[in-house]
């Protein structure tokens, strides 16, 4: 799992071992704290972990304790907060009434109060993602977003009010539209802490995977370009070759090879990238 180090909130979780063919040494050491460590693991596809970007991902089991998460304490009284992460939902079993809070940003550290929460909810028709923001009481931001089993990119933007009730929060899932809630009464609030994983939950089994967390104080935390396997911010024939090499036993690609987001890198991703190249 990669956290971008050059941005405000940092914590490296990927430490590459020497040698191209060696499995990467993945670590959660870059986070401020790991809670419920028995529920968490990190690794690469070489040892059965899923990843969306780069070589490592974080897995959170839903078969054990009530919560397990990583914590980022680098925010400090932030009046603007932008975050992005990727969530794989394909291994989670969530029935009606089951839910997992997969990301929460808080104000305060010693007695943290939720300011923003992304919740994955089960249902008879499949899973949904929903965002709630503190606005006096916790308030829904837009409608729940149905999510199929697979990787999903979630981008958040939160702003504290600068005068009476003009705070704002926005979010999007997979770049498919954006929901926003303005007029927030949050003038005295701030972001001091963020947690990622199974922060809190009710029911559920299986597991969730996380990758590519990134957070900023001012510039947007943008979603990654699907299919950009070689991480050059383009999708072209070079990405196809990167995926083909990985699929045929070569090095793991540094970018986003899982073009179709199904949790594996295979021929279907080659076809997905080819379609992306010709805009089809």
């Amino acid at each position, binding site marked *: 799992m990669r956290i971008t180090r050059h941005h405000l909130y940092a914590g490296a979780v990927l430490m590459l071992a020497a040698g191209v063919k060696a499995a990467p040494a993945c670590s959660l050491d870059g986070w401020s704290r790991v809670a419920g460590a028995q529920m968490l693991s990190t690794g690469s596809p070489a040892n059965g972990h899923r990843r969306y970007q780069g070589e490592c991902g974080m897995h959170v089991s839903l078969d054990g304790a009530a919560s397990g998460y990583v914590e980022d304490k680098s925010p400090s009284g932030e009046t603007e907060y932008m975050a992005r992460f990727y969530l794989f939902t394909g291994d989670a079993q969530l029935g009606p009434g089951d839910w997992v809070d997969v990301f929460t940003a808080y104000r305060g550290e010693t007695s943290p109060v939720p300011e923003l929460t992304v919740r994955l909810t089960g249902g008879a028709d499949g899973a949904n993602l929903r965002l709630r923001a503190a606005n006096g009481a916790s308030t829904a931001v837009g409608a729940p977003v149905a999510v199929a089993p697979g990787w999903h990119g979630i981008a958040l933007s939160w702003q504290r009010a600068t005068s009476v009730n003009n705070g704002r929060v926005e979010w999007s899932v997979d770049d498919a539209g954006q929901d926003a809630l303005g007029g927030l009464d949050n003038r005295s609030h701030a972001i001091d802490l963020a947690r990622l994983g199974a922060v809190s939950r009710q029911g559920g089994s299986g597991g969730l995977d996380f990758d590519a967390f990134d957070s900023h104080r001012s510039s947007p935390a943008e979603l990654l370009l699907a299919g950009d396997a070689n991480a050059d911010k383009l999708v072209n024939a*070079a990405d196809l070759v990167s995926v083909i*090499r990985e*699929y045929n036993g070569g090095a793991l690609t540094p970018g986003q090879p899982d073009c179709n987001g199904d949790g594996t890198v295979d021929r279907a991703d*080659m076809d997905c990238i080819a379609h992306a190249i*010709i805009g089809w």
Partner: protein
Amino acid sequence: MNARSRFTQSLALASLLLAGAASADPEFNVDFRPAENGQTRVLLSYLADNAVTALDFTVHLDVPDAFSADVSKCLGSLPKSHTGLCRLDGKSLHGVIYSPENRALPDANLGSVLVAPGSLAKSGGQLGVSGVDITTVTANGQTVNANVRVQGQAIPPGK
């Protein structure tokens, strides 16, 4: 690392060799030929350097907005080691070719696009190429230079 070759001459000049044929760089060819029933066939072919395994291209056609063509066989002659996709988007012909086993693309007639005379009539006989973008990639993921040639020209209807 210059992976992208761009050809910007008008079709009137396109029969000229645009880049060094004597080099070892691979070559992407676009060749206009008269076909049956007044149609024009745009042939796509490739001269290999034995290193490139995948490529993508965009042929920018010099045609009016109402242009249409049959692209069903655009990459219909690929060697069995390779697969490809082709799409006409307005005035741009997009294609991609790759080998799931990462094999080198050999010399090949890639396929052809068929332009009906009615389509040319709509364009007043105008059919040419204003540019070609191509990315050629070797088995180890390196992009390499490629030459582009455009030859021949469409035959305007009634001329």
